[in-house]
């Protein structure tokens, strides 16, 4: 699966997307794996700090994944 980052999170992590990640059974497992990268990723990817979208729809940790998804992590939105 593909993982993408936006906004300040993208700048903090220093990366905008990761290809061929996983597979993982759900968002929680994917998130936990990404958080293992280092202290920065651990903090920045916490579910209190960022939202997640699966295939362009807002989602959460319980969302199941098959491996073909595009999963996005980003800060609370500030448009409008």
């Amino acid at each position, binding site marked *: 699966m593909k993982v*993408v980052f*936006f*906004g*300040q999170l993208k*700048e903090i992590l220093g990366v905008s997307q990761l290809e061929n990640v996983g597979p993982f059974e759900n968002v929680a497992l994917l998130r936990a794996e990404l958080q293992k990268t280092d202290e920065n990723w651990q903090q920045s990817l916490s579910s209190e700090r960022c939202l997640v*979208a699966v295939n*362009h*729809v*807002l989602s959460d940790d319980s969302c199941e994944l098959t491996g073909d998804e595009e999963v*996005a992590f*980003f*800060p*609370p*939105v*500030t*448009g*409008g």
Partner: protein
Amino acid sequence: MSSASIKIQVQTEDFDHAIEYQNLTENQQSAGAVVTFTGLVRDMNLDNQVTGLYLEHYPVMTEKSLMDIAQQANQRWQLGKITIIHRVGSLALGDQIVFVGVTSKHRKSAFESCEFLIDFLKTSAPFWKKETSKDKDYWIEARSEDSTAAKKWG
């Protein structure tokens, strides 16, 4: 039952408020009320003297979430037309950022649906603002007032 005509646009170019108003009212003989909201880049935010704005978004999801918000409004209220336009990229002081316009038979549903659309856009559409002030650039933090505003719609 729900049959409003919906127009969604995400674009770097400016939009023409006059043309959008005209499009909204065209062939709308049953519409007694038109409400428009326009968001502009303003000079002060918190304590910062703003000089400009950069708007990042998540292509595909942006259009999808705006369409979803419009369809929610379309089911809650009897509306004639719904237009949502949101700009992305670099914007200057005073620039138009976002346009939300609706037509309806009655003013109550026009006001309510227009406010609903912008309240939900502000909490669920994937846009992120980076403000430019004299000394620095910084990402705007989400405001708790915005999630409160969205929650009032239940």
